[in-house]
């Protein structure tokens, strides 16, 4: 078991003929992922890394069934590509693209539920179920199959924590990078819900950062709904207000969205909050061990 993707997942890559799209298609294939089709309008009939390319998502889905789309489409064309994937019946869309306008994402988020499609990202590294499926750009080499769920707003912090977990002999069920934009798809709560229901997952590491109130809402959700242990880390305690810290959504606005308020909310809900990424891996290891012995 795992969440969202497994070895039955059939991945379609939108923007497969671009530099990033082609490179990461090769990496996804090398990690054992079932990449069945690619789409770039005007490039139908070609092959990239042995994967057939189609002109449209509809055509690809009709010819070779696919249920997950990974997007490497440039920001100005991402909105349309997201609509296309949803309208073609893709159930899970993973948008790697960074820099999509807020207006476009608001329109996409209003449309996707009408088609029953879920979104991860944008501006995210995607997700991975180690040794089974990688839908995105996470470095599969540092992952190992196991019982730890990871959900994060930061790519490299995820790698940092996962690397420590793997070194400590703690594998991962699924790791989800939800992305760094203010308007985004699946968040902490949806992932926590799925991890709680997943038989394989025994504990979850939540990696947050400044901006918005996703962590505060997750804290309440965990307190009221989670039986599995959750440990957390929040980055950006020393970020100056009003400045975007790399991610479009990582910004303290006035007095809201601070790391201190997020940490306080998580602690108030009884969730251990680590002082560093390496401590987060330690805390999760201990929590899973405790759960196994009780």
């Amino acid at each position, binding site marked *: 078991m795992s969440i969202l993707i497994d070895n039955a997942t059939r991945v379609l890559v939108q923007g497969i003929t671009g530099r990033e799209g082609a490179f990461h298609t090769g990496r996804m294939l090398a990690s054992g992922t079932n990449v069945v089709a690619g789409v770039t309008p005007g490039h139908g009939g070609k092959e990239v890394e042995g994967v057939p390319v189609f002109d449209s998502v509809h055509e690809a889905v009709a010819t070779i069934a696919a249920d997950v789309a990974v997007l490497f489409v440039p920001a100005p064309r991402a909105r349309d590509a997201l609509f296309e994937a949803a309208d073609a019946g893709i159930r899970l869309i993973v948008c790697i693209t960074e820099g999509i306008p807020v207006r476009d*994402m*608001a329109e996409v988020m209003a449309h996707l539920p009408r088609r029953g499609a879920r979104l991860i990202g944008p501006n995210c590294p995607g997700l991975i179920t180690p040794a089974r499926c990688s839908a995105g750009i996470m*470095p599969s080499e540092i992952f190992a199959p196991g019982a730890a769920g990871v959900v994060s707003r930061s790519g490299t912090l995820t790698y940092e924590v996962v690397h420590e977990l793997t070194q400590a002999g703690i594998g991962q069920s699924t790791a989800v990078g939800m992305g760094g934009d203010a308007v985004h798809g699946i968040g902490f709560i949806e992932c926590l819900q799925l991890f709680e229901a997943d038989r394989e997952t025994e504990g979850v590491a939540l990696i947050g950062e400044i901006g918005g*109130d996703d962590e505060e809402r997750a804290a309440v959700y965990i307190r009221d709904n989670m039986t599995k242990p959750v440990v957390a880390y929040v*980055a950006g305690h020393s*970020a100056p207000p009003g400045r*975007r810290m790399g991610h479009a959504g990582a910004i303290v606005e006035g007095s809201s969205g601070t790391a201190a308020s997020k940490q306080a909310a998580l602690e108030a809900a009884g969730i251990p909050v680590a*002082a560093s990424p390496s401590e987060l891996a330690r805390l999760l290891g201990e929590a899973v061990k405790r759960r196994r012995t009780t």
Partner: protein
Amino acid sequence: MDLLEHQGKALFAAAGLPVLPADVAVTPEDAARLAAVVGLPAAVKAQARTGGRGKAGGIRICRSAGEVEAAAAEILAMTIRGKPVVSVLVEQAVEVHREMYLAIVSSRALRGPLLVFAREGGVDIEELAKRDPGAIVRSPIDPLLGLCDYQVRDVVAAAALDPEGPGAADARKALGAVVRALWRFYHDRDATLVEVNPLVLTQDGEVVCLDSKVTVDDNALFRQPDVTPDEPADEREAKARRAGLAFVPLAGDIGVIGNGAGLVMSTIDQIATMGGRAADFCDIGGGARSEVARAALEAMFAGPPVAAVLVNIFGGITRCEDVAKGLVEAIKAAGVDAPVVVRLDGNAAEEGHAVLADAALPNVTLALDPDEAVKLVVDIARERV
């Protein structure tokens, strides 16, 4: 990016939103000349990217060209809430009958725009909502449907314009037109915030945008060709931006470079926890190659001297070897003599360590894990102060 009042108003005018005759001056003499063009009495208004201009004395009503010149001289010398006044707007003054508040703001929680109106301008909205809930409209706008007619009617009703007053029907119509035009503006201009505070009803029964606060989505600048961001005031930030790097200047003395926004934020936090202070946030990004690492180091050294530098890289897709090569090149080329602590882990970390060992740069120290790297750089910086 945040627009200055006069930049926002120029776009307002082009979008058919009612603004008063006005122009911008950067010298007191120019301001005095403009007074004759826009008409007297005139308001002289500080142009600075901050609120609280009125309270700070940055807005004056003047009755003569001489008064305008004197006010402009004073205001141009001001710094308001830490922001320098870059110019003054000289604007025709009007007799205000009523002040209202109108805004459209992108809401993270709603994942879309929110229309906000208040019957009274310049007041605390939360406080007004408690005192008189009927005086406030907060209405989410569906991103696909756009602004609906009923939402416009809600605003006009909440405004409670005196039905007996002269021209009340015209004023209601004008207010509705402003709400519609503001939504078009918000949408077409890729704004994430448009605020008119105050939106006024003049003694003559006109509805006018007396102020403008506009934030344009940085991600949408590619389709807003006439909105150009200012060059950052900080030399390091300007240099980093030209190289396509995310850079935020900070006040400390430890230069920080890392890959990934979260990792760099986390590194800065760890430095603070150990009693040090970071000089910057610099993210060289996911697939960083050697020239990017070099550009980052060069940007950092364009600013005030740092006591020490920490390079914290976790290679996912990034090959640590490439980053190491870029660092060695940049350190040699720029003659960097400040101590540099380097932590490389993940993809091609061993090859990266070998590159640094071969270069044998005397000021570079290799740290084996992130916690050790932070401790080391904070200790070194402390010794050098």
